[in-house]
């Protein structure tokens, strides 16, 4: 029962969504909307699960003085500050919640995002090390793309006598564009086509109950 009920729900919901995609005739659009509405309802209700889990895990950590427990009060105070200000004064402009969100949450998120610049530099340093011919090819194409994406690339090219008057006065940016639009795009599309096939196959495996490991074992 514990296995067959979820499998039946998966099969029915999955088939409704497939049929709704191909058959515009009633009752499939209504059934499809119903399934989507149900997901929204379940996902919205589940937010409380997340909140409860957050509080439970951190309160337990504090109570039992577990390793790194000192970070937990910061999390709980942060959560309660946003929750209480949001409930008491609302979330519109000129409210404490709005202030906390704009002056703390947004800058902290932006700080994390800005770290990406440094991580890109360190990852690029490693990836572009010319250790073999493939890495050298990657380095050369990355160098050309970077150079072609900034004005100085074409300026350097046009310093070469006769280049500015040639049929390709912006050769560096043209090469960068070609790399992005032809080999890069071809690779990306190949990955996308493969992934799309994987998506369809995974969905079919689940809908037909062939893949059951997400229900916990029971292949």
């Amino acid at each position, binding site marked *: 029962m514990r296995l067959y009920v979820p499998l039946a729900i998966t099969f029915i919901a999955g088939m409704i969504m497939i049929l709704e995609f191909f058959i515009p005739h009633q009752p499939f659009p209504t059934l499809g909307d119903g399934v989507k509405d149900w997901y929204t309802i379940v*996902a919205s209700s589940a937010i409380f699960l997340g909140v409860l889990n*957050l509080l439970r*895990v951190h309160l337990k950590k504090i109570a039992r003085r577990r390793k790194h427990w000192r970070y937990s009060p910061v999390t709980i105070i942060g959560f309660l500050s946003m929750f209480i200000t949001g409930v008491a004064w609302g979330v519109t402009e000129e409210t404490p919640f709005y202030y906390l969100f704009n002056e703390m949450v947004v800058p902290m998120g932006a700080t994390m995002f800005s770290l990406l610049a440094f991580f890109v530099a360190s*990852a690029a340093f490693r990836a572009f090390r010319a250790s073999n011919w493939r890495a050298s090819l990657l380095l050369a194409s990355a160098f050309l793309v970077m150079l072609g994406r900034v004005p100085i690339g074409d300026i350097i090219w046009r310093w070469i006598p006769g280049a500015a008057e040639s049929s390709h006065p912006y050769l560096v940016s043209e090469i960068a564009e070609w790399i992005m639009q032809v080999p890069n795009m071809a690779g990306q599309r190949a990955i996308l086509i493969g992934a799309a096939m994987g998506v369809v*196959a995974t969905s079919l495996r689940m809908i037909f109950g*062939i*893949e059951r490991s*997400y229900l916990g074992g029971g292949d």
Partner: protein
Amino acid sequence: MKIRTFSAMIPAVLLIAAAVAAQPVTVENLEAQDSPDDAGGAVELLWSLSEGTDFPDSITVLRRAPDGSMELVGTKPGVSTGHVDTGLENGREYGYLVRVHRGGEVAAEHGPVSAVPAAQWLHSKRWGMLLILIVLAGFILYFIEQGKKGKELYIRQIAGLAAVDDAVGRATEMGRPVLYVPGIMDMDNIQTIASMVILGRVAARTAKFGSPLLVPVSKSVVLSVSQEVVKEAYLEAGRPDAYQSDNIFYLTDDQFGYAAGVDGIMVRERPAAIFLLGTFYAESLILAETGRSVGAIQIAGTAMPSQLPFFIAACDYTLIGEELFAASAYLSREPKLLGSLKGQDVAKLFFIAVIVLGVLAFTLGDLWEPANEVAGFIRSLTRVE
């Protein structure tokens, strides 16, 4: 002499151009048809606008009521070229008039035109996708049968998946936890679902080896599913006592808040193995580089093409696109799942052949007309609206 003649013509040309430009725009080629690819109950009215720049103030659409009178069903801006009338009864004929309004007056009236709304049983622009689905499902079901019959199915080695045992074993030897990050999207995303399937396999191994498994999540539904999946895997492995529900926890829905939280866990807990499997966006490299900095063996996988280069640069193993979806079958070695994987591969070969045929047909189309028709057919087959 010629220049003088041409100069004399300029005012005349300008006058004609001005007359054409100021010519009032009106409705032309009005037609009504059943709204295509829907559940019925709608009629689509289409028209074109004549040349000129003097557009009408508005265009109104009137429908003939059962008593014969005309009722207003839509008021459109003067530049519009269509209207969809909804809430109609299928199988009944509806008549329409379209009126062009200028300066508060009806400047012109077009129609009547009529159409009968009806529901369609097959979406006319999706039959190609249906065909593809049937072919794919056919191959998958055939190879599942082959797998069930015990036929040996060759599946190429996927380095990232072959390293799962090594990664968990390494964590066990080092006495450090395994960190599993299922991405930042919810359970309605197929990559998250695939990630949950792999989580079950990884949890089975951590249960067997006795390593702690940490699963921070960014969505509540994912939390609930992760807890169930890991719990079942521990039960299945005969180690329900080793299951720690607090090790699967919710952090935040916020993208960079989540990245900060996971980075903090990496730095504090120093996991020996990190799995980054699911949907990732800009946080992918932030997570992968931090994981690398703590010396963890990292296995990443996503179907997001823009994030794959970051994972390839920063992780030890990367599952590229479809490999993420193949992971469950690969790890379980269960004949039915391997059969489905084999079917998927054969279907892919078939579609590669179709793509090559389409490219060849399109390329030869300029020289040989039938090739163009083949290219057009393949294009219609693969186009989805």
